[in-house]
């Protein structure tokens, strides 16, 4: 998102007063849902009229919109016979809590991660000299935006009728200070604590296409975390399938019995 030069941003060295406030004692464990329980999701495919395919996902307060355009001609450079996938993942300037910020640098990295996660699921060799573009926009980020964006982008690609092996489903996970339990699908306050993991899975093929984790993981906690993420992906999979079927039925009306 380009910065707005007319906007008065205050002095260069300004800080949020929250930094000086006494940190509130965070409750241990989460309230309202279990550790391995993802937030409720709303999924819809095929909602944008001008895109080849599109999808929208809402997981708790996180809202992601995604459009796919193409395949369109690209030409191909250096004897590359496979098609090319372009991914662009952006955060709306007002999407996060706190001060207004344009996050160009971090969104570039996230775009690369999105591309790596999706590329394994696509049959790009079927689109020689062509280009597929994926535009994902995070409207509101209340935690686990990247996993939601991956699921959303994959659904949009399927809605566009791109040949693929499987849908890609993303899942996020966080773990607070040492010894605390793993929490699937963290919201933004849980995400800040300690260690986080992001994983994307091709559920039918049981293949992991994207993995990124940071923070400290002792012993076998990382293995447990990977398993938990995979479970989360498997739970979301039927929801995505259902919305895809719905979108396709809308697009192609059921055949009417021919009279006479």
């Amino acid at each position: 998102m380009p910065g707005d030069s007319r906007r008065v941003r205050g002095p260069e060295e300004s800080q949020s007063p929250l930094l000086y406030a006494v940190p509130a004692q965070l409750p241990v464990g989460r309230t309202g849902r279990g550790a391995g329980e993802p937030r409720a999701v709303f999924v819809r495919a095929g909602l944008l009229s001008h895109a080849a395919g599109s999808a929208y996902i809402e997981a708790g307060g996180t809202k992601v919109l995604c459009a796919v355009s193409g395949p369109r001609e690209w030409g191909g450079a250096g004897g590359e016979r496979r098609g090319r996938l372009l991914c662009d993942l952006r955060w709306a300037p007002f999407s996060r809590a706190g001060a207004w910020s344009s996050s160009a640098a971090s969104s570039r990295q996230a775009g690369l991660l999105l591309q790596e996660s999706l590329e394994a699921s696509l049959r790009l060799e079927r689109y020689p000299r062509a280009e597929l573009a994926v535009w994902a926009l995070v409207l509101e980020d209340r935690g686990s935006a990247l996993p939601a964006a991956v699921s959303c982008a994959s659904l949009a690609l399927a809605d566009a009728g791109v040949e693929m092996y499987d849908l890609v489903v993303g899942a996020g996970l966080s773990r607070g200070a040492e010894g605390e339990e793993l929490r699937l699908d963290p919201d933004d306050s849980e995400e800040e604590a300690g260690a986080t993991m992001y994983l994307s899975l091709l559920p039918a093929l049981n293949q992991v296409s994207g993995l990124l984790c940071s923070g400290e993981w002792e012993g076998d906690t990382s293995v447990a975390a990977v398993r938990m993420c995979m479970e989360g992906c498997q739970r979301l999979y039927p929801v995505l399938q259902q919305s895809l079927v719905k979108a396709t039925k809308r697009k192609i009306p059921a055949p009417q019995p021919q009279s006479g």
Partner: protein
Amino acid sequence: MASVVLSEAEKVYILHGVQDDLRTDGRGCEDYRGIEVETDVVSNTTGSARVKIGHTDVLVGVKAEMGTPKLEHPKEGYLEFFVDCSANATPEFEGRGGEELGTEIANMLYKIFDNKSSMDRESLCILPGEHCWVLYVDVLLLECGGNLFDTISIAVKSALFNTRIPKVRVLEDDEGSKEIELSDDPYDCMRLNVEHVPCIVTLSRIGHRHVVDATLQEEACSLASLLISVTSKGTLTCMRKIGKGSLDPESIFEMIETGKRVAKFLHLSLQNVLSQEESLGKKRHKIGFLR
């Protein structure tokens, strides 16, 4: 990233070799190439190191400067990473070509240091909330011959080991104003504890097996690899899948196992080499880089 083009026959040759645990240069699947480490190679830095693995050559310089602590962590100093992909390494890096790879590696370095166990950042604090040491870690790629991430992480660790920060004292007068005094003795230095600084191990999936320290040719045969950064205690601090392909969950668990095992030996031998080199003191014959 620098890459080579291989024919199908060459790929099959490498693949079959890996399946039989015998790679084209005679190594097994879990063997590193010979690693050359030299510290204190650049005179104008607070710490520097050069590491060469096969045809991958990396030079790291650390400069310590005084700055203000970040507001979120008023009692800690911090590290800044910059990776410069010079066009000397490969013509693909010409102009802005290396920028993307550079930021990717720098982000990875931020990630592996973004926890409490990797380094004691509180020792970099001079005056809480006002002054701290900022370590600017500059990574230069001189030559690319596969396995960049591992080489860079080893070089960063060696350079931090070599870093000597001048000791400063905080003086406070009657009116409460504070002054920072630098020690007169240039050899009166503070050293960093690098024992828990993690190293990255890259495991490249080739066929049904995985190899460590892949050469450029082997990287061309691998569709997906897993980067894991492990401390000397065996704690995972970062893990990332790179590449176009996907990985079987079971193979990920195997790779984590292998990575931890390999990293343990890597840390041990690196620590040995570094202390050995230091024990030589002034007698040490300096070699310099790109030789």
